């Protein structure tokens, strides 16, 4: 039976119920361009999604050298053939007419076309001049969470050992920096403990600030399927919005912004008070229990209820839910990571799992999520403010080891201080100590907080900016040199998703015009700069994706993210494999920490930890005395009030977030017709109570103003918590009159006009959810609803005020039931 569904109207498609401990049935989702029949497809090319962190495996349909569609891979354990709406429709953006096809350089204030040689010579000449005159600290690299592993690794080698700069980070700083930091604080090392397969076995699934229905839609399909099967899981949802998760939750908590630590401390308090603790696990595998117990001793549900503004009875129910189950899976995302006390809160979720012994077995696990598809790769490769292979910059042995891999002197690799994080890099650029910023695959002029400040940094005369991207993004428009990049489907590389699953994504078609793979661009630069190792040989010895992958394998050997058992050939004939994958575990590793904590020993750990409240780093001596045997660390934290609280002038809390139809700054999804039509413009969500009080309604045009700036959008009253405004994060200016920012005819549209420059002191992740704002009416609605979708958390509180979001025939997608080959399933054991 084949079934065609409008996957804009029904983003999660049809249901296939299955019971606890059973295998999630496969279903192949296919979308082909209008008029293309499956039989007419000439080649199917293996790939995986780069429009969110699921790592959904798919095949790209190719006919006459063009991409004509995609199909989920049923053999893959991550998605079992399913695809989300972004996967189904997003590929069409590759063929947009406004792709960059030639390099551009700024001449007399204007970007003009040029050839690669000229553009790259300009970049190399400026680099050399800055190196000579101001040293390596004057050059910074800001990369993405959307490139491939081979590209990050090459960039890390050329930046750290070639240029010798400490300034290399990715936009994963906005996305997964707290996930990484929280894992380092607790387990001494990065690395996702759990597996998506844990969803098949869990009894309770707690989603902390994680709107999985919209950010990881395929895993939400999995939960929906389980909820319709035998012995369904119960959900705990912590989110201020009426998300789909909230609608399906056994307990939904909608705390005030910035109060996660208070809530979590109350959950820990209840867990300890009722003695819902796995003492043996705590004794065998952790340190710090007494301190934690002491810290949360006074954090009663009543205490937290006042701070979080949720009923104490609900907190008790939530505590019972997570405290009495035998199989708890927790997931964490931006509602925690981009909010006040981000790392402190994320760590408390780790603590909950440790004291309950919920780790390392099917159905008991922890998923500190990623937002971006290849965020995990920046972390492993050290392109995100860490050293490659989860090495510890404070440990000279680790640095020496890395220097050996690269055949350079250890002093070549800057390790006198932690690698500079993105927000600090922008500060250095603002102040003038960074004079060149090379931005690859990301769009800070929309995605960073306080955009007027970011624009003023990027437009400084003295700052030389190189932007490497697919389109003339808001950021590219401000650049000095623009390099046209090839993307997914036009180049080959590996990518690793949020549960450590490595996929290979192969080149299916040629990139447009002169656009080049990011890897080729970095290699070209390295050649022009003539980077050398300590014996005078070339520093970078590889020249294509596969040889770069092989080089990375050597760097990963013996480290937690060991790739030595993988190869392109193996990834080709199996589909996703989870690292570590080496001689001992050639089929990969489903879960970390199945028999204890592996990487927290003082000699092995990636980090000695930080003070969660101040960010002060610990030294090895302290770490050694605290944790001599390398157990997991139960790190307590006190609640502190947010840095900005509503007042008379700015009476609302303001939060931003992601929605199902758009990705990042809409660079690609805004160019896929079905996705664009589903959510074409920014909107502002308000609670019905606040809307009534202010006499405002659906479709009214409003200004959201903060101390930093303003944006304008149409209002959507929803079931969001009172006192809070929500604005989607994705919208920028490339499709408006003024191009790169607000202008005379373009009022503010990006949520980040209004967000605050503040970051978590431990993870350095900027906070997008803790600003305050005022709301003013610009103009009454004209009867047209706001452009917010009705299928998601943005659904109107009053049914019928807006036409249901639908894609029509253009969004019809096939769903075919399929057999999942049992041999490779890890599940029902």
């Amino acid at each position, binding site marked *: 039976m084949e079934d065609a569904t409008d996957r804009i109207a029904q983003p999660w498609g049809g249901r296939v119920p299955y019971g606890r401990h059973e295998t999630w049935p496969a279903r192949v989702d296919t979308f082909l361009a209008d008029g293309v029949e499956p039989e007419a497809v000439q080649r199917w090319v293996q790939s995986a999604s780069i429009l969110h962190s699921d790592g959904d495996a798919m095949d790209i349909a190719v006919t006459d050298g063009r991409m004509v569609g995609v199909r989920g891979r049923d053999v893959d354990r991550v998605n079992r053939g399913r695809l989300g709406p972004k996967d189904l429709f997003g590929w069409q953006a590759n063929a947009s007419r406004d792709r960059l096809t030639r390099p551009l350089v700024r001449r007399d204030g204007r970007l003009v076309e040029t050839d690669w040689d000229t553009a790259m010579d300009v970049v190399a000449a400026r680099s050399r001049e800055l190196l000579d005159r101001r040293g390596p600290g004057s050059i910074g690299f800001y990369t993405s969470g959307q490139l491939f592993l081979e590209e990050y690794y090459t960039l890390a080698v050329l930046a750290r050992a070639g240029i010798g700069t400490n300034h290399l980070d990715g936009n994963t700083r906005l996305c997964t920096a707290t996930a990484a930091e929280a894992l380092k604080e607790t387990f001494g090392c990065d690395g996702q403990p759990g597996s998506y397969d844990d969803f098949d076995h869990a009894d309770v699934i707690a989603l902390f600030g994680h709107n999985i229905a919209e950010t990881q839609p395929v895993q939400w399909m999995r939960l929906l399927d389980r909820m319709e099967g035998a012995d369904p899981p119960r959900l705990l949802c912590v989110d201020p919005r009426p998300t789909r998760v909230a609608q399906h939750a056994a307990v939904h908590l909608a705390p005030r912004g910035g109060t996660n630590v208070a809530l979590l401390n109350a959950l820990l308090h209840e867990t300890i008070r009722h003695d819902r603790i796995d003492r043996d696990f705590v004794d065998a595998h952790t340190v710090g229990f007494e301190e934690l117990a002491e810290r949360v001793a006074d954090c009663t549900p009543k205490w937290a209820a006042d701070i979080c503004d949720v009923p104490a009875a609900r907190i008790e129910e939530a505590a019972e839910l997570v405290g009495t189950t035998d199989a708890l899976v927790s997931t964490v995302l931006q509602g925690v990571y981009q909010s006040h006390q981000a790392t402190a809160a994320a760590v408390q979720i780790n603590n909950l799992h440790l004291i309950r012994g919920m780790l390392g077995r099917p159905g008991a696990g922890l998923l500190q999520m990623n937002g971006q598809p290849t965020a995990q790769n920046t972390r492993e490769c050290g392109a995100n403010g860490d050293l490659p292979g989860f090495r510890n910059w404070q440990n000279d042995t680790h640095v020496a080891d890395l220097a050996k891999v690269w055949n350079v002197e250890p002093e070549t690799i800057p390790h006198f201080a932690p690698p500079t994080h993105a927000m600090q890099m922008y500060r250095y650029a603002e102040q003038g100590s960074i004079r060149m910023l090379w931005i690859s695959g990301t769009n800070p002029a929309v995605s960073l907080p306080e955009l007027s400040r970011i624009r003023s940094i990027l437009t400084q005369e003295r700052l030389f900016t190189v932007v490497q991207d697919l389109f003339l993004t808001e950021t590219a428009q401000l650049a000095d040199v623009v390099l046209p990049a090839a993307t997914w489907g036009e180049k080959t590389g590996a990518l690793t998703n949020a549960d450590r699953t490595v996929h290979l994504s192969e080149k299916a078609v040629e990139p447009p015009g002169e656009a080049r793979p990011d890897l080729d661009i970095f290699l070209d630069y390295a050649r022009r700069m003539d980077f050398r190792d300590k014996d005078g040989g070339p520093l970078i010895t590889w020249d294509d994706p596969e040889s770069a992958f092989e080089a990375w394998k050597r760097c990963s050997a013996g480290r937690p993210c060991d790739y030595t058992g993988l190869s392109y050939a193996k990834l080709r004939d199996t589909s996703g494999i989870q690292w570590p994958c080496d001689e001992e575990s050639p089929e990969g590793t489903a879960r970390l920490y199945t028999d204890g904590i592996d990487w927290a020993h003082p000699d092995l750990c990636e980090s000695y930890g930080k003070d969660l409240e101040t*960010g002060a780093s610990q030294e090895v001596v302290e770490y050694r005395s605290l944790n001599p045997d390398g157990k997991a660390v139960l790190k307590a934290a006190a609640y502190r009030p947010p840095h900005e609280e509503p007042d008379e002038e700015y009476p609302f809390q303001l939060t931003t977030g992601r929605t199902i139809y758009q990705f990042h700054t809409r660079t690609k999804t805004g160019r896929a017709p079905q996705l664009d039509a589903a959510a074409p413009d920014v909107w502002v969500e308000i609670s019905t109570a606040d809307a009534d009080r202010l006499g405002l309604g659906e479709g009214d045009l409003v200004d959201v103003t903060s101390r930093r700036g303003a944006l304008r959008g149409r209002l959507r009253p929803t079931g969001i918590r009172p006192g809070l405004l929500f604005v989607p994060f994705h919208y920028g200016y490339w499709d408006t009159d003024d191009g790169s920012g607000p202008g005379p005819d373009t009022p503010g549209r990006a949520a980040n006009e209004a967000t605050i420059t503040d*970051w978590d002191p431990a993870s350095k992740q900027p906070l997008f959810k803790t600003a305050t704002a005022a709301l003013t009416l610009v103009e009454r609605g004209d009867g047209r609803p706001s452009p917010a979708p009705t299928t998601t958390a943005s659904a109107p509180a009053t049914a019928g005020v807006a036409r249901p979001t639908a894609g029509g025939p253009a969004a019809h997608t096939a769903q075919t039931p399929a057999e999942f080959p049992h041999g490779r399933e890890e599940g029902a054991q």
Partner: protein
Amino acid sequence: MNGITLTLRTLHRGERHLAHDLVTVAERHRTEHEVHHVATDLAVWSREHVRRLAEAAAGHDVKLGDPPDHSPDGVFATLRKKASEAVVHRPEPGLLLLRDLRELHVAAAENSLHWEMLAQAAQASRDSGLLELASSCHPQTLRQMRWTNTMIKNLSPQLLNSL
């Protein structure tokens, strides 16, 4: 006046100063966002220390003042804020920042030593109240020191090499 009340007085003065200096530094370096926010948070600890020291002193019949006002002193704060925004694009304030962080570090270190002295004296005189006070406040003072130390360590390479 005995040595304990003398130490309480000294520490009270020291924590008052530190609270004030943290807020001043936070204002002066508004455009160094991390310094601004964390210094503001850390000032809360010192204010709390001042309050608790005054309480303890009252138990020893010594009257010590309240913590300084929460808000930094109006006009000057505005001036400092304006000054910090005026130089947002200049490198030189980096030196001033390092100097300020150093001063904070030294002030916190002095307080730390005084907490040590107080704790020792409390032990010798079996004053469990004071010992409790010292052992709950001193760790926060140490954390203030670690923070300034970390910031200096992280920022110096860039700031001193770019002048």
